[in-house]
């Protein structure tokens, strides 16, 4: 058998239509899933911000590792200066930078890494040349908090 009869006899049209549709459907589903991955990751990265907002609405939480009250969400260098200074006083100087980051995360500071980076760039935190860091009182005096 040849030609269109052969195709019809073997259900060729149905197989081709169904096969094409399934391939399309599969790749469309994959496309939809992939296009959401980076959005989900972005949401995951900002989860602290959302969590803090929700927490504020619900209750105030006491933390055992640090004796500080819940911090105001710092949005810029000036905002985070007071909170980090208090942490550094607790740790002592010269202090290891990873320890400061660890403490700030435990205290619930959002975006602790970028906040520390802002303080480094503003020269409020300066290296002591031996792998540890110091609080720069001179620069702090010039910043209105």
């Amino acid at each position, binding site marked *: 058998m040849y030609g269109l009869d052969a195709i019809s006899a073997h259900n060729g049209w149905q197989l081709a239509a169904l096969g094409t549709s399934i391939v399309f459907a599969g790749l469309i589903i994959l496309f939809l899933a992939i296009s959401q991955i980076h959005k989900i990751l972005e949401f995951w990265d900002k989860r602290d911000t959302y969590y803090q907002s929700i927490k504020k609405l619900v209750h105030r939480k006491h933390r055992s590792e640090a004796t500080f009250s819940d911090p105001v969400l710092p949005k810029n260098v000036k905002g985070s200066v007071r909170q980090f200074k208090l942490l550094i006083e607790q740790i002592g100087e010269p202090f290891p930078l990873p320890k400061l980051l660890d403490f700030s995360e435990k205290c619930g500071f959002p975006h602790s890494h970028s906040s520390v980076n802002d303080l480094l760039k503003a020269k409020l935190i300066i290296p002591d040349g031996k*792998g540890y860091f110091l609080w720069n009182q001179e620069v702090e005096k010039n910043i209105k908090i």
Partner: protein
Amino acid sequence: MPVEINIIDSLNLFEDLSRAELEEIASLMCRIKVTEGEVMTRQGDQAHSIFILLSADFMVFFKEGRSYTLHNKGDIVGLSAAVIPFCYTGTAVALTDGVVLSMPGQELLRLIESNPALGGKIMKKINQIISARQPFVTGGC
């Protein structure tokens, strides 16, 4: 994502290289997006890649809490991927979101071995950087 030459020709590590040499280096690299808090290298792990900062800030810390920070375009993390015994000597954490260039250490070594003139220029700069960071390193693998 392929890396254009104009991204790397301004970097200190590659400033003495010719256009052909830059093209060869660029072909080994790819861009990676990093997010705040992401760990790029862990102390003691097998060193596989070298990372060159384009727009992110990094902290590299060692066992006793000693650390240094990197903020400039062209700063390098993970040079152990090109140096025996190929183990990262520090842990590198991104302080901010940004973009880095990643280059497999073994590919760089292969390039250095196959092109002595180019390799000499690059290894000299690598050794300078490693020497400057040596005081922070507390131990090997």
